[in-house]
Structure formats: structure tokens, C-alpha cells
């Protein structure tokens, strides 16, 4: 099933690229000239349009996937997986001729394959590396380098017709998504109407993350509440937006696209926004990373090029995948880390 899905996604991606081939070309051509030749005029032009934010991006050499060969092995977080997959597909479409393997095995397992077995080139993670993991990496002479690639934030949403909820505590969130039957069971001033739940399906990473954060990894309470589930976020949007008494959650990016019919709730008083996600105050957000090591990157130029390509292109695909872009600072820091390895 998984294989079939990947195949279908790949097919779709090829179709999409084929249909929209005019667009990326026009975007990339000027960058290629500017990045490769490092010409003064182009850099100046870039600075003007971007207000100088992407300073270090200009310093990264442009990768031409056509010239990249050799295999890349990447493993780790299932949350980073779709993002890495989207980048890899693009990398392959643009001419990369080696084999890239991406395993979706979870952040912890990804680190153990990277740090203990040393058999992968890149570890994907949806949490920062732990000290113990850094130690085991050092034991095999690897010094993990962190590259921030994005943020996974969940928005808890209600219909824009809902005029009684805008802020919930964690305890209320737990009650709403499990034992409470009616809204009035959660807060007495809320209406005496049944709560309708719309949540992502149990096979999704979003489901797992919510269960992990809100229910301490026990899916039972939420599933016992007979929620409506769908892998298709559109169905969830439809369900939530249709009734003032419905509530659901999904990736923030998806909420953004439907802001006109939905409203996102603040959690413990913190509203989900680019800022609160960046400074880690919004509780349902987690950073997405890829990790590698300078010596691996130096030994395997394809890994080096791939990470460069990843950092340069990640913001063009991240919304499609449904995540939140990392802040410019974090991304620049990642690019600096890459440059440090290449000096």
C-alpha cells in the first residue's frame, strides 16, 4: 500500500512538473546566473527584492542536479519524510541520476542509524538531537550538524460561525477531544450542544503528533469519542466549517488556506502565528530538522549537494507538503552551517 502510494505520488509529481514546467524554469534561470557567477549586478538585484534577508543564500553555490551522481541514504522522522520526499522528487526531476533512499522510521530510529550504525548519510528528525545521541555519534567519529528545514505546527480550528471559543487550555483541549459530549461539559458558559470532532486519520503523522502532545501517546481516549476521520484535509475543512459546534485540527498551512471559513484557536493564550511558532511559545509546533556530518558531506559530494539543494529549495515546496517554513534566521543559520562544512 505504501509503495503504491509513493508510486502514485511520484506519478502525480511528474505530471504536475510536466504541466507546470514553464513556471520553475523562469524562476530558476536568473538564480542560476546570479549564484554561479556571483555577479555584482544580480546580487544587488536580489538584495533589493529580498531586502537583504537571504544574504547567505547568495553565497551558497548553485547545485545542478544533472552533475550529481552517487547514492544518498536518508532515514528518520515520518513527519520530515514527505518534505524530504518532495525535495528528492524535485532533485531527481532536475537530473540527479543516483539513488536516494528515504526511510520513514521515526526520529529516534533515524538517529540510531546515523549515530550508532553510521549507515545513513542524513538523519531526519522532528526534534533536536539529544545529548546521548550526540555522544554515540561522536563515538563513531561523527559530529552531527543540524539543519533546520521547517516547522510542523498544528492548528486547532473551529468554524468561523463559532462565536464562543477562541482560547482553550491544554486540559480543555483534552476534554474536548475525548470525554466531553457537549460543549457545556467543558466550560459551563459554552452551549449545550454536542461536540463534533474532525481529525486526521490514524495513519497520519499529524494524528500521532496530536496524540503525543495532548494525550501522552495514548490514542484510546480520542478514538473512543467516535471522531470523524479523514486523510483528506479537505474533508476535515468541510466538516469543521459547516457547523459552529465542530472542532478539528490539522497542519497550520492548511488552516492558512482556509482562513475565510475557519478560525484557529489560541492554546494557553498563545495564538498560532509565524512568530509564536518561531519562538516556540505555541505549544503545538515542533521544529523539523535534517542532520548530517561534515566528514560525510566531504566524503560524499552528492550528500553535500543534496543538502545544499534542500536548503535552497525547501521553501518552495514546504507549503505544498503542509508545513510551516522555518524563519529566515533559522534557515540562514542552516545555510551557514553548510558553508562551514565546505570551508
Amino acid at each position: 500500500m505504501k509503495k503504491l502510494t509513493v508510486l502514485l505520488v511520484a506519478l502525480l509529481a511528474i505530471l504536475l512538473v510536466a504541466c507546470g514546467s514553464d513556471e520553475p524554469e523562469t524562476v530558476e534561470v536568473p538564480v542560476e546566473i546570479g549564484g554561479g557567477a556571483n555577479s555584482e549586478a544580480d546580487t544587488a538585484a536580489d538584495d533589493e527584492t529580498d531586502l537583504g534577508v537571504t544574504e547567505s543564500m547568495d553565497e551558497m553555490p548553485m547545485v545542478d542536479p544533472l552533475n550529481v551522481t552517487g547514492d544518498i541514504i536518508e532515514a528518520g522522522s515520518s513527519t520530515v519524510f514527505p518534505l524530504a520526499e518532495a525535495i528528492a522528487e524535485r532533485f531527481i526531476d532536475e537530473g540527479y541520476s543516483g539513488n536516494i533512499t528515504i526511510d520513514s522510521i521515526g526520529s529516534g530510529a533515524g538517529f540510531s542509524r546515523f549515530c550508532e550504525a553510521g549507515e545513513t548519510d542524513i538523519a531526519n528528525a522532528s526534534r533536536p538531537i539529544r545529548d546521548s545521541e550526540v555522544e554515540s555519534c561522536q563515538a563513531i567519529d561523527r559530529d552531527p550538524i543540524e539543519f533546520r528545514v521547517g516547522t510542523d505546527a498544528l492548528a486547532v480550528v473551529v468554524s468561523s460561525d463559532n462565536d464562543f471559543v477562541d482560547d482553550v487550555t491544554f486540559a480543555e483541549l483534552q476534554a474536548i477531544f475525548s470525554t466531553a459530549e457537549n460543549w457545556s461539559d467543558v466550560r459551563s458558559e459554552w452551549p449545550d450542544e454536542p461536540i463534533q470532532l474532525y481529525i486526521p486519520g490514524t495513519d497520519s503523522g499529524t494524528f500521532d503528533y496530536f496524540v503525543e502532545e495532548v494525550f501522552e501517546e495514548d490514542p484510546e481516549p480520542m478514538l473512543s469519542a467516535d471522531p470523524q476521520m479523514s486523510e483528506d484535509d479537505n474533508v476535515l475543512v468541510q466538516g469543521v466549517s459547516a457547523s459552529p459546534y465542530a472542532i478539528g485540527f490539522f497542519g497550520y498551512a492548511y488552516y492558512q488556506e482556509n482562513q475565510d471559513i475557519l478560525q484557529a484557536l489560541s492554546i494557553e493564550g498563545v495564538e498560532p502565528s509565524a512568530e509564536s511558532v518561531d519562538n516556540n511559545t505555541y505549544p503545538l509546533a515542533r521544529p523539523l530538522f535534517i542532520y548530517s556530518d561534515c566528514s560525510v558531506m566531504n566524503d560524499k559530494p552528492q550528500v553535500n549537494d543534496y543538502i545544499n539543494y534542500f536548503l535552497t529549495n525547501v521553501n518552495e515546496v514546504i507549503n505544498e507538503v503542509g508545513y510551516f517554513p522555518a524563519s529566515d534566521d533559522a534557515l540562514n543559520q542552516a545555510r551557514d552551517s553548510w558553508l562551514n562544512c565546505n570551508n
Partner: protein
Amino acid sequence: MASEAPLAPTTRVDTSALDKKPRARETIIQALLFIAGAISILTTVGIVYVLVSQAWLFFSDQQVNIVEFFTGTTWQPRIGRFGVWPLLSATLMITTIAMFVALPAGLGTAIYLSEYAAPRTRARLKPILEILAGIPTVVYGFFALTFMTPLLQSIFGPQVQVFNTLSAGIVVGILIIPMVGSMSEDALQAVPDSLRQAAYGIGATKLETSLRIVVPAAISGIAAAVVVAISRAIGETMVVTIAAGSGPNFTLNPFEAAETLTGHIARISGGDLSYDSVDYNSIFALGLLLFVITLILNMISRRIVARFREVYE
């Protein structure tokens, strides 16, 4: 199905005299026809084999208890709860609602077309009815979601959820009207005209003739049509996937969202389900259950045809 049955016994002709010289072309055509028949039988055998073998894997899993399967009221594979009733109740509820729509409408259509409509009207209306049967079910699904549900919400108020079994049931009913109508009409048409003439002869009105003479005479065909329509409603997938809801919910409230057997199979198999997991095997068990239900209905329909068939020579 029902209408072809009465013809079978009378059309056997003794062909032994013609069989003396085997002709090559005849043999080839016979073989081709045999293969055509065999394909559908072998496919059925293959489906049954896959369903049974995978369902066996499911039922022999440690997490699964066959008693819980048939009596449990929670279906959540993720937490090892495999009680089929939430799915089965939604299926039965939608089928019941559908039959409440399709039976009167379909039968009414059939009686009108067969007994009342002028031949020219009939010649025009019947193809239209059959076109209705050709509309893709995905269109019916969105019709339920974007037309029927808002309509119900405007009648019954906000207690009607955006996904609900009532809307899906009504639309499945509309979907099977042509099936009930067309098959019942065939059955009514098969009633010999002499019966109608006799009824008129003793002074019966047209309505009396239709309802008291023709419908009872055709009852086996009509009943068979109804049973086939029920199987169709139970098996209908697209409409319920789109409009009925996407989470198992054990309820008899038609305004609430609930997921049917078919809808659940469609949703789960579309997800990122890993092969050989108990969740994956569970969809085959559900498929087998659907298959058995349909099989039983088919047997009932054959029994009805055999039992109540009126033969007029």
C-alpha cells in the same frame, strides 16, 4: 435477473439431430462462449479466495476476537477494537432509508410506465430512466453533499451534520430508483394482456386492474428487483464515502455522521496502511461480510422467484 428466468424452461429444443457433424466454426464459437462464461466464474472464485484467505489472517490475529467482531460496538483498529456494529448499523440504516425512497418511487414509475403511459410516452421515458442509472455515482455523492444536506439542514436545522446518513440514504435511494423501476416494469410487462382484458371484462377500473391483478401477478419479479436493489444499496460506496461520514459511529440518529462498511474500506485502503497489518487484513474481513450479505440476499431473491412465480401460458 428475474425477467430472464421465466423464459428458460420453455426454450429448450432438442438439437441432437443437428449435432451429428461437428463443425469447426461451431466448436470455436462454443469454446469462446465457454471462456467468456468461465472468466466471470473464475473471477468470483478468485475474489472469494482472496477474501477468505485474508479474512482468515484477520480472524486468527491475537488482537481479534470473533465474538467481539460480531457483537462489539466500537470499531477502531488503531486501538485494537474490532466490533463491526458501528459500520454495519450505518450500512443497514442507509439501506433502509434508501429503500423507503426507492420502493415507492420505483414501483410507482414501473406501474405508470407499464399500465398508464401511452406507448409513445413510454418509449421516451424508459430510456431517460435508464440514463439516470448511468450517472456516475461520484456525481450522486456530491449531489448529496452539496444539495441534499443543505436542503435537510434548512428543514431540520443545525442538528443535521454536514456528513449524515439521512442525506446519503436518500440519494442512494434516488440512485437505485431506475433499477427498481426498470426491473419491476419488465416484470409488469411480462404479465399477459389477457389478464388485464379479463379484469376490464368484469368491470374493474384501471387502478384496480393495475394494483389487484397485474402487480400481484408480477410480484415475484418485483420482489426480485427489490432484493437486487437492496444489494446494490448495501454495496454502494462512492455516495456514502463522500456524504455519509468518515468515522465509525454507533448511532441510529440519521442526522449524525456515520461510516458504512464500504465507506470504511474505501477510506482505510486509501490511507497509508502498511501491508500485512491487522488493520489491513480487517478490510478483507469487512469485504467478506459484505459478500456474505449480498450472497444471502441473492439466494433469498432466487427463492422468492421460484416460490411466487406465476406461470401463464
